[in-house]
């Protein structure tokens, strides 16, 4: 313990806290860029930062990244709630939170999510020493089976969608067709998204120099643009947001929310391609969640564990597990990781979570001022004015075309009440089949190889 404190409190490491704070502040700015996926934004930011690689020690870069990922995972809830989600993980949360916003309780929802994120980070820190012991074993057991685990996730997410419709016709077949209409659309949407995923991953239209951003137009199209379009055509107004001084919660809510969220987030962090949205849904079903507050809080834990946990896995000594975009970006910079770096990571993670949580309240109030003073439609139009040129700048006309196709797909759940989660077929299907070794067969069949 003394040794650990020596490491954490040693003046040599104080600069890491400085870089961590810079990361948090950067994440606050990045969070304001509406509807963009976290890893793409961080990817661009890191390209800029890596120019200073010669003058920055690897641990300083890591501290910066920790600040960014922790800050983003906590602060991103705010603009996602008021301006629109950037990825599937956020869109899973945003719809119920939009319900809270409509009731003027958006602030409360954001704070509840923040509390969930904070408790999740604390549990992650407590579990961190244990990870060293059991995660290598878990990796050894599951590594040859990852493809079918993702396959099982696909099967479950398709089968767990229940029919919608009122079933009020006297004719049984009419009711049956009505119910299956929505299921069918959901299933076709999953397949169409999967097809788009195969095309983007094998023969993307994005120019080679922007290859690292090839998934950006897909995510912007599938998740961000439909949300912004819906906001623009929505005639409703954001009601006055009540800035609550306290949040209604009890220990039961905290324990259940953190536990369920941690399970979902950890599953999403550990299994490749599975996002916090999918992990959250499965954990919610596994722990039989019903309460709205529980869902919102649990989601705060889930997405934070997903974003931060996947990055943390990279630092576990001897595990060699690269999950999530940030770990991939950092990978070339970091050579040797020891137990010392791991615990420095944990310390910085807790520090970043504390600072980010303190920033959450003023950050939310700022967002509320914006949506209350500027018409909501205009906020979304401005967001689109930022997003579309950003996609063009990063991916060219090819990326714009992909974004247009993806936007068409992304609008289907809005128009036909299908699950947005089906859009995750864009990654789940191609990655699952590629991991199983069937990717080339499918590509040949599609004429892409």
């Amino acid at each position, binding site marked *: 313990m003394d040794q650990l404190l020596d490491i954490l409190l040693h003046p040599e490491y104080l600069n890491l806290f400085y870089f961590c704070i810079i990361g948090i502040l950067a994440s606050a700015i990045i969070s304001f860029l509406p509807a963009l996926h976290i890893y793409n934004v961080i990817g661009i930011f890191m390209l800029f930062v890596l120019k200073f690689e010669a003058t920055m020690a690897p641990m300083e870069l890591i501290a910066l990244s920790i600040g960014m990922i922790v800050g983003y995972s906590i602060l991103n809830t705010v603009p996602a709630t008021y301006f629109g989600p950037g990825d599937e993980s956020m869109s899973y949360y945003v719809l*119920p939170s939009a319900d809270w916003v409509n009731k003027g309780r958006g602030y409360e929802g954001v704070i509840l999510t923040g509390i969930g994120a904070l408790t999740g980070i604390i549990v992650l820190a407590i579990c961190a020493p244990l990870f060293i012991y059991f995660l290598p074993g878990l990796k050894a*057991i*599951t590594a040859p089976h990852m493809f079918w685990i993702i396959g099982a996730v696909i099967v479950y997410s398709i089968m767990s969608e*229940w029919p919608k419709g009122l079933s009020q016709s006297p004719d049984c077949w009419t009711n049956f067709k009505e119910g299956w209409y929505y299921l069918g659309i959901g299933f076709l949407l999953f397949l169409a998204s999967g097809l788009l995923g195969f095309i983007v991953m094998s023969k993307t239209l994005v120019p080679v120099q922007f290859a690292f951003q090839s998934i950006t137009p897909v995510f912007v199209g599938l998740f961000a643009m439909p949300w912004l379009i819906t906001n623009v055509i929505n005639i409703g107004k954001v009601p006055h947001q009540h800035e609550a001084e306290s949040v209604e919660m009890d220990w039961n809510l905290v324990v259940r929310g953190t536990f369920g969220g941690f399970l979902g987030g950890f599953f999403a962090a550990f299994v490749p391609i599975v996002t916090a949205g999918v992990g959250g849904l499965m954990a919610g*079903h596994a722990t039989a969640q019903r309460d709205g507050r529980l869902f919102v809080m649990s989601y705060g834990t889930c997405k934070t564990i997903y974003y931060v946990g996947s990055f943390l896995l990279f630092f576990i000594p001897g595990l060699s597990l690269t999950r999530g975009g940030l770990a991939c970006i950092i990978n070339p910079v970091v050579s040797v990781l020891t137990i010392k770096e791991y615990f420095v990571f944990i310390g910085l993670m807790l520090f970043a979570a504390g600072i980010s949580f303190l920033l959450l309240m003023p950050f939310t109030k700022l967002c509320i001022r914006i949506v209350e003073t500027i018409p909501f439609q205009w906020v979304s139009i401005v967001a689109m004015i930022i997003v579309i040129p950003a996609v063009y700048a990063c991916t060219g006309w090819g990326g714009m075309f992909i974004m247009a196709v993806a936007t068409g797909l992304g609008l289907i759940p809005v128009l036909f009440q299908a699950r947005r989660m089906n859009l995750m077929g864009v990654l789940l299907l191609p990655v699952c089949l590629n991991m199983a070794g069937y990717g080339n067969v499918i590509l040949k069949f599609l004429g892409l190889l």
Partner: protein
Amino acid sequence: MKGFTHFISGIAVATFFQQAIHMASQESSFILCLGGLFGILPDTLDFKLAKYFYKSDVEIKPDPNKLDAREIANGIAQAVNKAIETGKGSVQLHTMQLASNRWRSYQLRFDTKTSEICVDIGPEVDTGQIPFDGTELTDPEKAHARVKVNCEFYQQFDKVSNIAIMTGPCFEFEKRADGKMEIVFLPWHRQWSHSFTLGMLIAFIVGLISYFCVPEGPNPELYTLPRWTLYPLIILFGSMVHIIEDSTGFMGNNLFYPFTKKRTNGLGFMSASEGIPNFFFVWTATILILFNLDRFRWAPEITPPGITSQFSFWFWFYVVPVAIMLYFFLKGKKEKELKAKEEGRENKTVDFDGPQAVESETDASII
């Protein structure tokens, strides 16, 4: 139980077949997913098929512009009266959708003490079932009704049915030998789809197909079962585990349909909607999956195990978590009993494996 509980339990069952694990790890087979698929299938058959083809004697479609609780209660009484005369009657209650995200709610309760059907018109709600203020009916004559019927009710689940969003519930009334009128909630649920006979039938058909279509795999000397038997066995045990898990709740299954005609009562150990029991099964399945994947890993002589100490694994990852779950489960049960005692009512656990609970999933996109 929740769909996910059945799904992961089905996968856990499939991992007991060594050859299936080898097929997954060495031949990129998705055979283990088959267990999950058939684990969740009985509920899929009910909620995506059977519910559409069940015909009720009485259908109640309340008019949102002419709300009258008595009219609804009378409609239900009509189905009860049919059951008094013929032995059986059923009623389907429909919801009232007012706009894309606006519904009129109403509640139904059967009072066993007074033999009354109690209907209360509730407020307008959104799809998240949050009420809109000031939308309650002001006329008490129209908002509340109690209609007495000429029979004594028998119900296992003493619950208030809130009919608000999506599709409404269905009730069947069946005259018992003791003269009481049994209220069967969701009569189309857990019938033929939740029977061992259906599992055996599907397994038999798949067995026939796989016998002719599935060739023996590599290294057959390693296994006691021929490869073709894996498919029917995983299907059979996957669906069986669903039925066994459901039997631990209050609502049972129709185990040997068509030889048995009625859905039996469950063992009543736990409620299908409770978090801890669901998670107990999920956790047990997860631990079994990991244990089986490890012990049946390919080439164990050259591949180091993921589980280095069996004792530590079972103690820390199973005994301790289950003990914690048991503690909180019993604590919660005791608190519920105390609360019921304080309120002077009987503590009857509600089994929520109905459309409201199943359909109000945590998928946000339906809101």
